[in-house]
């Protein structure tokens, strides 16, 4: 299925560091921009971006006029391939315009370049890419589970589900309290084995958040699945649809709970190394259960995903690359 993605040069409206190593970026959404929760953009991380070259600089755009080399090859300051980043939210301003929200964890050169971008800079993005969360999955209650930067696609998803009248709860798992990129109300602390939803987090538009930290410094001590179970112990598993985004390990643990409690739907956002994100490099192969002799068919995260039903996926946990 050919991608509906296009190449855009999106203007950065704001940039804000958060947590220990996250950056929130908002981009000016063009009038014809359409995206749905769960889709992502693939960003060329270079410095400066081709279109930002000052008139002083050498023009090394592919179609720059000749001559433009000077004996040496142009060593670009960029990562080679693009970097996939979820569309965290698509918001309407009070003034009527729309902005695309990204939440990026700074883990390497590409994300570092993104974190150094300033309002007014533009980002070279391919997008929107991929399928999207199915907002009509059965279940009055929607539980959204994320770890690390896996919270990103859940933000917009949460808002969309609230708008559809679901009762939304987010679950966030991180190593320690410093890793949480949200504006938490003051005075939160450890809650041990108790799941205590936190409300009033501005980035989440009101949806309550249950936090788990591995070191127990904030919320439930343990993994996000521990928080999930603690919460379910209080409210039961009835009428729940799950939505998840995080490392394979986490998603696979969630899938186990889904099977155990026989939940009708759990949509997970998968990841893998993306060479192209347009379906040509075949890097992002994921095994999806099938009734053939092999027991699976190969699907591609960038085109067939990134959202899959957890029960369909064979979690191989081989690539825990991009969400450390």
């Amino acid at each position, binding site marked *: 299925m*050919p991608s509906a993605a296009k190449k855009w040069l999106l203007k950065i409206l704001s940039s804000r560091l958060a947590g220990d190593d996250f950056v929130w970026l908002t981009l000016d959404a063009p009038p014809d921009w359409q995206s749905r929760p769960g889709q992502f953009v693939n960003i060329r991380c270079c410095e400066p971006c081709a279109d930002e070259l000052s008139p002083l600089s050498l023009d090394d755009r*592919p179609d720059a006029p000749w001559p433009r080399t000077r004996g040496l090859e142009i060593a670009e300051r960029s990562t080679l391939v693009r970097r996939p980043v979820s569309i965290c939210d698509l918001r309407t301003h009070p003034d009527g315009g729309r902005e695309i929200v990204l939440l990026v964890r700074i883990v390497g050169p590409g994300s570092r370049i993104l974190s150094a971008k300033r309002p007014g800079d533009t980002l070279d993005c391919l997008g929107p890419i991929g399928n999207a969360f199915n907002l009509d999955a059965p279940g009055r209650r929607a539980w959204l589970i994320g770890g690390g930067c896996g919270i990103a696609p859940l933000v917009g998803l949460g808002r969309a589900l609230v708008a559809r009248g679901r009762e939304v709860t987010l679950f966030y798992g991180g190593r320690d309290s410093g890793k949480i990129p949200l504006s938490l109300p003051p005075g939160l602390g450890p809650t041990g084995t108790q799941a205590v939803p936190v409300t009033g987090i501005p980035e989440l538009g009101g949806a309550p958040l249950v936090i788990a930290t591995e070191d127990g410094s904030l919320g439930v001590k343990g993994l996000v699945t521990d928080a999930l179970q603690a919460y379910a112990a209080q409210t039961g598993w009835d009428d729940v649809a799950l939505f998840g985004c995080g490392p394979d390990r986490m998603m696979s643990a969630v899938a186990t709970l889904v099977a155990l409690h026989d939940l009708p739907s759990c949509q997970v956002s998968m990841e893998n190394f993306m060479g192209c994100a347009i379906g040509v*490099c075949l890097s992002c192969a994921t095994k999806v259960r099938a009734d053939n002799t092999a027991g699976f068919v190969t699907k591609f995260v960038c085109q067939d995903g990134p959202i899959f039903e957890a029960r369909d996926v064979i979690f191989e946990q*081989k690539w825990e690359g991009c969400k450390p």
Partner: protein
Amino acid sequence: MKPALDVQVGKIRLRNPVMTASGTAGYGPELAAFFDLAELGAFVTKAVTRQPRAGNETPRLVETRAGLLNAIGLANVGLDAFLAEKLPWLRDRNVPVIVNVAGTTVAEYVEVAAALDAAPGVAGIELNISCPNVKQGGLEFGRSEPGLREVVSAVRAAVRRATLIVKLTPNVTDIVPLARAAVESGAEALTLINTLSGMAINATKRRAILANVSGGLSGPAIKPVALKMVYDVYRNVARQARIPIIGVGGIQYASDAVEFLLAGATAVQIGTASFVDPAAAPAVVRGLEQYLAANSFARAADLTGALES
């Protein structure tokens, strides 16, 4: 006056010297979302094998300094599905279609090539001989002269209509005799180079990053190696034999393409750069046209081998 961009590769007249590289452009529709494929000199497909192949386990791809290391493992839909589902769409795109062919036995190469030759809409067949020769203990066809001669001659006998192109691997002591062997065995054009053998390790996890342990290195990192091989093969084989070379390896901008033409290539392929920018190939076409105009070349073909010494 606008410079003439068209070039001849075997029996194929190309609108311009710029093609996609096999395995980096799928079967067409993916890139067509970004530009009209008719802007290309030719479209080269992902490798096609007799049977569909799922490819290697993941991770299959990793970035290295200025390069990509891949071990996709020739994942492809297989000959039948290609002919039934992929080719019909491609052949209506008003661009010559070159199908990359892979196999592990001579018989497989011949069968696939013959079927493609018989299929309307296939202008060229590009033999990817960087595949393990299962009969000869796994050494790639393209790394031994006898292996290369055997597979190219056999395919030559089976291909009547389409232009036969042989794509060489750079992982050899001397590419010149292999290029010569390919030409002597009937290649109408040579593509060089395929990826360099390489490996990446995660020091923290103490594991090879690719599930397949090793893979093929592509991208800007390998450009100097590719340029040298094009230069050597042009001067020692292709020029005299009047066999066109299709240069590939690290081409990202029009300047890179010009360098390959100057070294001796007649056409070029854009691989990894399409991952960075899906419309890299048509941008190279435009840049090339500007270069020709700015430097008063009437024809792209005049650049081939035009290196001053």
